[in-house]
């Protein structure tokens, strides 16, 4: 989302979320690659709002059914 919102399918930008089906054992890296997010732009990666450290993103089994995965580039504001 944010400056990578254009990577979402058209028409889904405002809702900012889509349902996706993934294979069992999928890693966060797989999802990041599937949406063509450049590695340096996958800065904030959250599962159900909890930050996942870069080294954990290749671990399979972190994501369960109905989990919410969020990916942001580096962002900040005030």
């Amino acid at each position, binding site marked *: 989302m944010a*400056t990578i919102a254009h990577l979402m399918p058209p028409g889904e930008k405002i809702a*900012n979320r889509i349902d996706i089906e993934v294979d069992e054992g999928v890693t966060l890296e797989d999802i990041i690659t599937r949406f063509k997010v450049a590695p340096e732009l996958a800065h904030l990666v959250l599962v159900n709002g909890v930050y996942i450290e870069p080294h954990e993103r290749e671990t399979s089994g972190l994501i369960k059914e109905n989990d919410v995965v969020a990916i942001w580039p*580096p*962002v900040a*504001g005030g």
Partner: protein
Amino acid sequence: MAWTKKYLRVNLTEGTIKVEDLNMAWANEYLGQRGLATRYLIDEIDPKCDALSPENKMIMTTGPLTGTMASTGGRYSVVCKSPLTGAVACSNSGGLFGAELKSAGWDMIIFEGKSASPVYLSIQNEKAELLSAEALWGKSVWEADAILHKTHQDPQLKVAAVGRSAEQGCLYAAIVNDMHRAAGRSGVGTVMASKNLKAVVVRGTRGVGNIKDMPRFMDATNAGKAVLAENPVTGQGLPALGTQVLMNVINEVGAMPTRNMRETQFEGAHKIAGEAMLEPRKSDGKPNLTRNGGCFGCTIACGRISTIDRTHFSVQDKPEYWGNSGGLEYEAAWAMGSDCGVDDLDALTYANFLCNEDGMDPISFGATLAAAMEMFEDGDLTTEQTGGMELKFGSAEALCWAAEVVATGEGFGADLGLGSKRLCEKYGRPELSMTVKGQEFPAYDPRGMQGMGLTYATSNRGACHLRSYTVSSEVLGVPVKTDPLETDGKADLVKAFQDATAAVDSAGLCIFTTFAWSMEDIAPQVDAACEGEWSVEKMLEVGERVWQLERQFNQAAGIGGDQDTLPKRLLTEGAGSGPAQGKVAELDKMLPQYYELRGWNTDGSMTDATRQKWNLPA
């Protein structure tokens, strides 16, 4: 230019204006702007005075880098005692006004006393005069701005003014400059209006001078600009989406205060987020956001220029609001949006326009309305008091109406202008006020971000995110990621952020640079511009000294460690959803360590040793 070393002292009671020399010994200790003006304030007023009496003074102040080529070097601050909190107030604004004041040859203006009738101060370089503002009184900021431009026949005139809300005594009135930039918090506009001072207009053409080492300054500022351009936050995120980039992020991490902080996530967040401002609307195919905009000398340009849908109920009969104007920032969108449960982007934009037009702090306004909505839903307030309006959470009509009545002070607008603390006390529900030291919270729930709990509790101007933005580290991972739910290490983090921020606020720069700049980027720019040595260490020392000085002011004003706390709701009611579910703000785990780091007693009072160490006035 670095310091002009001159400032104006305007005595409104006597109607006199004097030129005085800047105290350079103090400038060496406090640099400028926030720090230096606070040094003057503590020297010149009794911290116990009534903030709205002629005894209070109001200082409009620039920093040494204001008006220079440094990126974002256009800031000014307003320093006085706050009527909302009773503590020291220091509100910072961008736009063009601060740089113009500096270019006219003045580091600051000290206003004292109270004029017998409405006046405004006009500055044309060295010429400064008080003129009648009888024709401006009762006008909004925007109307006053138009009249002043016409009177002076100068499109380049820069105007800072107060609106009708300030005249009516709204305790969170702002000073608005350049139509939609504001010294927003703590009621600095209320203080200005209490002095019968409607506006300050400036034209400065003397340009840049007095830079210690010009070639080195060029190199240092260019290097700084390159860092901002290359950084994804300051180079891409902020220009594209503004601060509103945060709406979805903060909601996702479960730290979005919702419906007067009863909840920590807002189901309508995506409808009022920065991304939504870019989506074409049905009626005219245009998005809410027209373009971004920047303050003087800024190479980030996070500002929002927006339009409202002409078919929206708020403006369909009001063509005067159909044009471009200052759009939503994250804090305004949060306060009037999720804190009031309103997910109508056009209603929020309209209320935001009104906050600019009549000078209300949108954070305090939104948060006060949220408290009123909770009292209305609980039956403490009824349509009898509101004059018929149903103050229900989620009502866009109620939001637009409230902005209109606070702007003019009519009817229930006068009550809403009291701020959340006094309003909740008046209607018998003090526990529903989400404030610290009387100032309303900004947009981060401390249950989901522990460092922000300590930040709010210890902020010298009451609840505030701009005193130590640990969000940056706890959520956004800038510069390094820390766990938002952890309290360990947060006392150090908060102190480090507080000190660095105080230094940046004393330099004339915008705090948003610090998403990309560290003190290693800032100190060389200050050092090349200002006489004396300005190393990283010295800058951080200045920052800490400013913090200690502000604390000293508050202590002398009778605000001690007992007020370093949070509303009971945040200390006892766990978050209802999200990663922080069940968690409260664990202030007690952080506060003692913080006091120790600051060199204060266990009750938060200043020790003599600390006072001496920082050479604070007695």
